[in-house]
């Protein structure tokens, strides 16, 4: 059996240590070892965005990140977005606009949209579309998702 690589990282504000093979993706580590199944495995090619998590403050594809290369990284998954039982602003807005259909894309959408609003707190609808252009919704329910991000940007008073 091949030897694993011991990696220490921070996930949702908690220190975690894992021993992984070199080719294990961050997505596999999160889902299989750390039981954080909010990030989804869609295409496993970086195209669909369902696995998007925040790494050191920027949204990244967990399926294209190797855990062995993430030593010391600060990772936030969808499980870490709500604070003290309070949903994040994007999550609340998605609920208000009824933007969740099957929900498979939602966790990635939330991470991507949170990053968008951090970089651009008052985006136009076109900027929201560009910001989440790497996150595919197979239900094709984009309009209510864009509405939700705009609502969140307006402080929930759209």
């Amino acid at each position: 059996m091949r030897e694993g690589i011991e990696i220490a990282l921070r996930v949702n504000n908690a220190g975690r240590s894992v021993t992984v093979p070199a080719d294990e993706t961050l997505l596999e580590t999160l889902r299989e070892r750390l039981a954080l199944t909010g990030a989804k495995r869609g295409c496993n090619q970086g195209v669909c965005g369902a696995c998007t998590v925040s790494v050191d403050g920027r949204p990244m594809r967990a399926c294209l990140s190797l855990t062995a290369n993430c030593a010391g990284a600060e990772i936030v998954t969808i499980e870490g977005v709500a604070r003290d039982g309070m949903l994040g602003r994007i999550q609340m807005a998605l609920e208000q606009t009824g933007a969740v259909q099957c929900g498979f894309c939602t966790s990635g959408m939330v991470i991507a949209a949170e990053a968008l609003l951090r970089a651009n707190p008052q985006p136009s609808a076109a900027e929201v579309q560009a910001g989440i252009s790497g996150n595919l919704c197979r239900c094709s329910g984009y309009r209510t998702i864009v509405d939700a991000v705009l609502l969140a940007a307006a402080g929930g008073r759209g």
Partner: protein
Amino acid sequence: MEFHRPTDMSEALRLLASDPEARLLAGGASLVAMMNARLVEPTTLISLAGIENLAGITEIDGGVLRIGAMTRHRETASDMRLSGGRSVLRRAAGRIANPVVRNMGTIGGSIALADPAADYPAALVCLDAEIVAAGPISERRIPAREFFTGWYETALEPGEMVAAVLIPKTTAGSVGVYRKLARVAGDFAIVSVALRLAAQNGHCTELQIAVGGSGPAPLRLPQFEEKLVGRPLDDLDAAALGRALAWISDPVDDVRASADYRRRVIPRMVEDAYRRAVARLGAKA
């Protein structure tokens, strides 16, 4: 599979030389996707993430911009020193995939893979950029036109890696345009056009056009470009150059478009890019 994260280039190059099946890991946007699909199964992975000074854009001698191999597309897409003619590269970087993938992918990783439908090759050929290749013994500079040699093939020798890309200054007052035809936002190009243009008193003084996605390597016809220099901007037949580029193209039939469609669309893309460049010059004047 072994995993290494060296902290300097010489160690990375030593590891690269030690195993013919070793792969350098830059941003992972292509390599990890290919590993997930079992298209490549390296026996050694060498992460470049721990090497200092491999990321970032710096101005060096003569105003040349040096873009380190590990510079993310996000950074290249937002660096306003890439202005005028050099904006071709900034615009091309901003059209790669989507904001999340632009946080990951790097210029060195992208050009080392040399996907003919990617955005950098045409932009770099248009800009007469040079690629700095680091090898076990020394560094050398490869003109972009000679770097992209075939389908997913480059002039890199075994044991060499991309260390940086050098972007020369462009003529004062010149403008850059990058046009990309794609099925949906963020997809690879069906055809792309990188163009820069300079003019004086309404006459063309410089025109450089490279076409991507239309053969194993970007297309360019410098002698044809020369013939158009001196023409009045409003009487310059860019589509004729586009037709010549289509004539030398060798596009593929694939899921994005047929080869025939690509040949037909090249002249129109070139003409459209030229018109936008003229408009941009007009807006500047």
